[in-house]
């Protein structure tokens, strides 16, 4: 059993390693590992184990250099943001106006994209690595206070981070005049309370200000200019920051030697659904393909029961779907976009041949309709109607016009061509990511993404459950009236 350091408040039972089940799901592979090395230890989250395995060495290296040298090192490593957008962290840091103070760091630990759970493991199993990343970022860019915003539904992550912070404070690694230098930083653990949209960085800031978590109007596009309390603010994802200790310890050159020039380093991905060995893996960025992941011995070892692969979601619930034709697309942002989807948050959900596609699409559309914050009408109303209409179709109460209506409602959220994968069976060419949108954030388009993919690639499965107008009238279902007055089929 792991021993926990630090003082517990009197009267409260100390939490032991056995009181909460060990987080399963991670499998170590042969590839170079940057952020999951401490996952090899069941007690990797404790201060003793972390210190015995090189924790805070990267930060101590940073302290021997000037802040701008540290910033340059991170910029040279080209750490692409791991939250979904994939924007380089070093460049994002540079967007802060040079003369406005104070500046803040907000850590986005509100992970809740369907299919995604890398940040939860990084917080639960190596909180010291994350704290070290926060220290490096704050030192490099002059951030005066750090807020670690953790999703409310992750009490284990809270407990581990709280203990890690207490231990690091007690050891002089956080707080006033760290390690005897003039660098000072408070890191405050903050709680979310259940809202997917708060993962959007301006909504995260609103929430941290004690308000409803609704995304802010843009521009400004980056809170680096105007963020928390109207001050320059860096919002970085947990995995992004967790990369920094390794980079400072081993150097940017070692980091860029892993992966490709455009996508260096590694990624932590979660593969779930109909595979033999669902799991979380650290993979080489840019070169690992979806085929490697789904079929490789190191990874998921194939589709369950040796079934045929029908489709997969490559980058979290918001991402347009891929079919077996895209298996050889590498885990690289631009290639994935060109193929008609996005890498997003490193979450792959796999559907085998037995999958009922309309039901699968509905499970995602319902999620986004449910999670709409209500600020933008196309998302609030559109998402709700997409869910209602699709539910009707799934339940065998829809008519043929419902399918066109789904696309029409979707077009009010995302006008123009929606990204999709190519399909030689259907004679489709890929339409690259991203899309146009009428909403502030990506929740609205995400409600439409699974419907568009499913209808484009598997329209027959929807048509099979439609009923005609007479049958619909007989069971009292409202018959959809298309806004297309000529009554011609949408093309």
């Amino acid at each position, binding site marked *: 059993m792991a021993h926990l350091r630090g003082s517990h408040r009197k009267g409260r039972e100390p939490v032991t390693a056995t009181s909460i089940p060990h987080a399963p799901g991670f499998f170590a592979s042969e590839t170079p590992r940057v952020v999951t090395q401490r996952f090899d230890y069941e007690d990797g989250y404790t201060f003793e184990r972390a210190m015995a395995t090189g924790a805070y060495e990267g930060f101590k290296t940073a302290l021997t250099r000037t802040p701008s040298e540290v910033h340059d090192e991170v910029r040279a490593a080209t750490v692409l943001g791991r939250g979904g957008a994939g924007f380089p962290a070093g460049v994002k840091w540079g967007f802060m106006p040079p003369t406005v103070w104070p500046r803040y760091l907000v850590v986005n630990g509100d992970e809740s994209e369907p299919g995604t759970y890398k940040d939860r493991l990084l917080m639960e199993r190596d909180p010291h690595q994350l704290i070290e990343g926060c220290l490096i970022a704050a030192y490099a860019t002059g951030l005066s206070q750090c807020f670690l915003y953790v999703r409310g539904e992750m009490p284990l992550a809270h407990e581990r981070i709280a203990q890690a912070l207490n231990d690091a404070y007690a050891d002089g690694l956080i707080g006033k005049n760290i390690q005897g230098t003039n660098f000072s930083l408070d890191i405050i653990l903050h709680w979310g309370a259940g809202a997917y949209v708060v993962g959007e960085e301006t909504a995260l800031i609103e929430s941290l200000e*004690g308000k*409803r978590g609704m995304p802010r109007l843009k521009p400004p596009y980056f809170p680096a200019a105007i963020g928390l309390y109207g001050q320059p603010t860096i919002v970085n994802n947990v995995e992004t920051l967790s990369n920094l200790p390794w980079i400072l310890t081993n150097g940017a050159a070692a980091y860029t030697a892993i992966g490709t020039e455009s996508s260096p380093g590694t990624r932590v991905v979660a*593969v*779930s659904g109909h595979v033999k060995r669902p799991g979380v893996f650290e993979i080489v960025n840019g070169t690992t393909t979806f085929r490697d992941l789904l079929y490789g011995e190191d990874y998921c070892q194939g589709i369950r029961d040796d079934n045929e692969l029908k489709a997969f979601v490559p980058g979290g619930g918001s991402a347009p779907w891929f079919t077996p034709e895209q298996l050889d697309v590498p885990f690289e942002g631009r290639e994935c976009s060109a193929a008609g989807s996005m890498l997003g948050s490193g979450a792959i959900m796999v559907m085998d041949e037995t999958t009922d596609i309309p039901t699968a699409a509905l499970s995602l559309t319902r999620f986004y309709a449910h999670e709409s914050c209500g600020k933008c009408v196309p998302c609030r109303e559109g998402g709700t109607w997409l869910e209602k209409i699709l539910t009707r179709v799934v339940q065998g109460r829809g008519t043929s016009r419902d399918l066109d209506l789904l696309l029409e409602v979707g077009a009010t959220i995302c006008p123009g061509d929606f990204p999709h994968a190519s399909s030689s069976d259907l004679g489709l060419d890929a339409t690259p990511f991203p899309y146009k949108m009428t909403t502030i954030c990506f929740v609205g388009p995400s409600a439409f993404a699974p419907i568009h993919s499913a209808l484009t690639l598997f329209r027959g499965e929807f048509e099979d459950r439609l009923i005609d107008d007479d049958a619909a009238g007989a069971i009292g279902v409202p018959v959809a009236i298309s806004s297309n007055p000529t009554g011609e089929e949408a093309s």
Partner: protein
Amino acid sequence: MAAQSDETQMSFFTTENRRLADVIVARYPKRRSATIPLLHLAQEQHGWICDDAMIEIADLVDATPAEVKGTGTFYEMFKFHPVGKYVVNICGTMSCKLMGADELMNHAEQKLGVAVGETTEDGLFTLEHAECQAACTEAPTLQVNYRHEYRVTTDDFDRLVDDLTAGRRDGDIPAHGTLARIRQEIPANRAVGAVPPEEVDGPPAWLPQEGA
């Protein structure tokens, strides 16, 4: 209950929690940022968020009670009516759906004798549909008071309910409202302290001045 007079006004928070609340508020450059942490503290003390709690929190964070309620009602974890000792959230998003979440939910409704969204008559269980719980490889999943249970079969569910009812999980699953049982504690001699942004007029000490 409304206060009878200023003389006899009772505070919502216990003495210890009021002390904790003051500590939490002081960590933020602006008090309002403590709204969500204090709502969690109130729910930990009371099991759900009552009006008295919001009135006292408003006072602590320099907001109106309506603003506190406006913030609180945005977030799913805050309950504004009594719920069971155990809130059971069954995930229904894609990976769990693909791996049998519907069957699990149907079974849960039968076992507990309530429909989703309802609380059992003995006040022990509230059953809820949940969205992605970030444990997708271990589908289907559920959380009891936000503690994960993985790859839950219908037999597992029955055992879980029986164990909770008999108090056999008291050690690892506290009553609804309590999240983390370890709190962040910043030693006074190590804390930098939060400063309102308008009181900061230059770069921090370790950053060389531009052009210096």
